[in-house]
């Protein structure tokens, strides 16, 4: 039992989809491979799927023989049924493992979880909770088993799927109560914070006002408005507007280069390396709301890391270090 098996692979998946169609043109096949395959699949796969248009009897066919050529030039599957796709034991073990995760309560009721557990009777989980532990996850994770929190999650997910505007009463970071009309569009989970946040477009009157991020656990109440948002939301554009960059230099002492590149692997970045000194210069991009978090994470590298630019970010680090030196004088 392994994850790296051809039954999960792109080629099998493409063939399975194509076999669902009763009649296909050659161009349908190549277009499908182009869209669903790897970048170069179109160079290798069509000849294995498409039966030749003309073939001499003594010639060994190059295709897999899963389609036949029709008189009008189209192709049809040789199979009778839509290809079945049963869950494998590995997939069921994964589902079984996830049933024990408290976050599953966001999606299934306690009764549903019990029923599914009974259906997966005899399926071993891939691991039990005590086998895996986080060393540094924050201690104040969200209350995933709180029924009101679960309901808020479900309502916001439905609203995000249907683009419905919600009326939200929310405790701000300073514990002030805010009422906002907002349409959620993305739900974000942080493993480090063990918290869920919701990206929304907020409205002031009938106009879109700004993009905000609400901590799910700080939502006091939610009400559906029944109004659909008809405008377009382009999350990637929104995220790129929120983006800032910082350039740092990291020296190899105490394995800092390796540690830094691993820790900041989740950010889009450009890395330059001096092969002689093994010093790296990295420019990476982060969300402007995370500036303080980024600053303190960079300071954690001590003298192995120097913030080069932008000047105002560098100045913040310099100021903190100056104040620290004063304290330890």
């Amino acid at each position, binding site marked *: *039992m*392994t*994850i*790296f*098996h*051809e039954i999960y*692979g*792109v080629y099998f*998946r493409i063939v399975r989809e194509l076999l669902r169609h009763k009649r296909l043109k050659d161009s349908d096949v190549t277009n499908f491979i182009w869209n669903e395959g*790897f970048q*170069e*699949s179109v160079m*290798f796969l069509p000849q294995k799927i498409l039966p030749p248009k003309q073939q001499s009897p003594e010639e060994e066919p190059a295709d*897999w023989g*899963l389609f036949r050529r029709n008189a009008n030039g189209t192709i049809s599957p040789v*199979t*009778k049924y839509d*290809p*079945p*796709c049963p869950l*494998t034991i590995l997939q069921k073990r*994964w589902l079984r493992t*996830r049933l024990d995760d408290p*976050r599953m309560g966001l*999606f*299934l009721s306690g009764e549903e979880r019990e029923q599914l557990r009974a259906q997966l009777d005899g399926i*071993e989980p891939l691991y039990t909770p*005590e*086998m*895996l*532990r986080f060393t*540094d*996850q924050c201690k104040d994770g969200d209350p995933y088993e709180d029924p009101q929190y679960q309901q808020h999650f479900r309502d916001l*997910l439905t609203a995000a*799927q249907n683009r419905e505007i919600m009326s939200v009463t929310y405790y701000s970071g300073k514990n002030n109560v805010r009422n906002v009309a907002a349409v959620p569009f*993305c*739900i*974000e*989970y942080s*493993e*480090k914070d063990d918290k869920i946040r919701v990206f929304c477009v907020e409205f002031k009157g009938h106009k879109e006002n700004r993009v905000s991020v609400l901590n799910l656990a700080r939502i006091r109440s939610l009400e559906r408005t029944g109004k659909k948002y008809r405008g377009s939301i382009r999350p990637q554009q929104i995220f790129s507007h929120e983006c800032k960059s910082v350039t740092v230099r990291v020296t190899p002492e105490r394995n800092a*280069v390796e540690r830094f*590149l691993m820790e900041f*692997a*989740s*950010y889009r970045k450009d890395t*330059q*390396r001096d092969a002689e000194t*093994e010093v*790296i210069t990295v420019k990476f991009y982060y969300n402007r709301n995370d500036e303080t978090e980024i600053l303190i994470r960079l*300071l*954690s590298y001590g003298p192995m890391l120097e913030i080069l630019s932008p000047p105002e970010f560098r100045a913040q680090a*310099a*100021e903190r*270090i*100056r104040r*620290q*030196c004063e*304290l*330890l004088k």
Partner: protein
Amino acid sequence: MGAYSELVKTFSCTRDYVRDFFIYGCKVREEFSRKSTRSYDNERRRVESWLGKYFRNETTKRGRQFRVSVDSGHIAENPLYQAYYAKSFTDNDIQLHFLLLDLLADGQEHTVSELTEHLYKEYNKLFEERSVRLKLREYALEGLVCLRHQGRSYYFRLSPDTLSGLAGQFPGLTDAIRFFSEIQPFGIIGNSILRSERLRNKHFLMKHNYIVRTLEDEVLVNILDAMHKKCWLRVTVFRSTISGSDEERAQMCLPLCINTSSQTGRRYLIAYQPEFGQFKAYRLDYIKAADAVPDEKCPDYDTYAAQLREALPHVFSVSFGKAGEHPEPLRVTLHIPRKESYVLTRLQRECRCGTVEQVGKETYCVTLDLYDPQEAFPWIRTFTCRILSLEGGTEELRQLFRDDLYAMAQLYEEENHDDIS
């Protein structure tokens, strides 16, 4: 398909290349010195084919460098999953897969002989009965088909469990799979379920998302299997560095738990190492292969597991110190003004095994009792500008902390004109 194929037979060699392109992104051709049976050019071409739009290159003075560039916090699907979907196979494998499943789609039980005969009669495909049997046995192990055995006969039928069947009963399940498909470990398995039904995640994003961990899932399955069976594990490890890797070496260990850092992205196998008589942490991304030794079940497994549970409250990250060493207390006193209560909140939520105590009006002391106090330094430095004192540990260690601080001040001395030394 010719000499080059975008599919691969084994995962481990390709895994190293994907990791290097993603983590480092600054290596040129000559710096890929890791042992591999495949050439750099083929591996690079493959990774480029799998990862498409995320694969970038640029020409530098040292040569052309390639990288996988992803903003992991703002993607709906981990692009590195693609590496798992590139397993090579034979013509027989794919023909037997779709034709056998088509024959079994009637929901009835069939014997190997019947199926072999139908393959010829219905699709004009002649297979040896042995090949059909082996494929069906393999699929029974994978769970695609159910096997019933009566006397000397084996009957096969299609497994009835499908996502659409379960999702009909449990409407929230599909969204749950979307969510968990981006959570490690084994998000790839959830993604494979979605992909088999042409479903995608659209609304869930993961912050602090270390997508590269997915590449370790292949070895993690075997490690967890050994833990489950309480048996010894043979691990083959290498030490990856930006400039290459050391020789591989194989070690026997007793796997006890997996430690994940949500802040540095690293995952470790914590195991008992009989050679040194102590616990040891192995980075998962440095483990090339892990094989359970099923015959070598450890009778003292629970004893070692209990010893580990006792030791873990004294481990800040993964270091157990040197053999025979005892935990050292480390006390850090911080100034946290009342108007900055969010710093206190952060201290309390991030202090791990430490305890926080208010020792003055706006002064707090965090005490950590650790085998290796130096492990806490990076975290302590996140409180730079608030640290009033650092006590405990050795004098050498405290001096190192002060020296580091002054070295940092020198880096920024243009900004800070005051002489601090």
